[in-house]
């Protein structure tokens, strides 16, 4: 059982470059989420998706975009990376948008120089 996979594991990126973080789940969960985790700030929600075809903004959406073409995949795109987007990014999923238990992927460590 894979659960949630994220790619890449880590990445160093030049400022201004475009980057897509990949997230795939095999649990057939309807809801998916992207968080960033920063020291002293905890986990903050970037974007979410209730179900395939729908997305919504979280607490810190600026500079990020998402898409949900199907149930399994929820990529996060940084159109033009900036150093403040240096963080660890976690993808998560839950059975539906009305359930509380979220399952997290292993994370992507992104450094923007």
């Amino acid at each position, binding site marked *: 059982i894979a659960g*949630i996979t994220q790619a890449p594991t880590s990445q160093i990126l030049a400022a201004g470059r475009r980057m897509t973080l990949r997230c795939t789940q095999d649990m057939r969960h309807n*809801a998916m989420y992207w968080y960033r985790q920063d020291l*002293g*700030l*905890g*986990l*903050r*929600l970037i974007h*979410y998706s*209730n179900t395939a075809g729908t997305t*919504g903004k979280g607490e810190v959406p600026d500079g990020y975009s998402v898409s949900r073409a199907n149930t399994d995949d929820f990529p996060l795109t940084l159109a033009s990376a900036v150093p403040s987007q240096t963080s660890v990014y*976690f993808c*998560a999923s*839950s059975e539906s*948008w*009305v*359930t*509380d*238990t*979220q*399952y*997290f*992927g*292993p*994370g992507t460590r992104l450094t923007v120089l």
Partner: protein
Amino acid sequence: TQLLEQSPQFLSIQEGENLTVYCNSSSVFSSLQWYRQEPGEGPVLLVTVVTGGEVKKLKRLTFQFGDARKDSSLHITAAQPGDTCLYLCAGGVARGGGSNYKLTFGKGTLLTVNP
């Protein structure tokens, strides 16, 4: 905006000692979850409490949800080096109208248990 204050932020203890981590808010939550996170990995759910006053035990870990559902605690008895990790609390609020069940995370408690 609902905030969860988690304390202490850092805790370093000796093997065999007991400890308590607190999670407090001025807001009421529908549920309160506790996660543990190992370095380089994502958070893993330990427990969910949903009823005011509820107490759940997981081996040496005891979780309690406050009567008013505004606070929670995690108590570890006879801590072991394997308990070393980041502990996160997260409060859940059920929102109507098709909106997401929103989780608000505390900033975490980094526990180190020294042999």
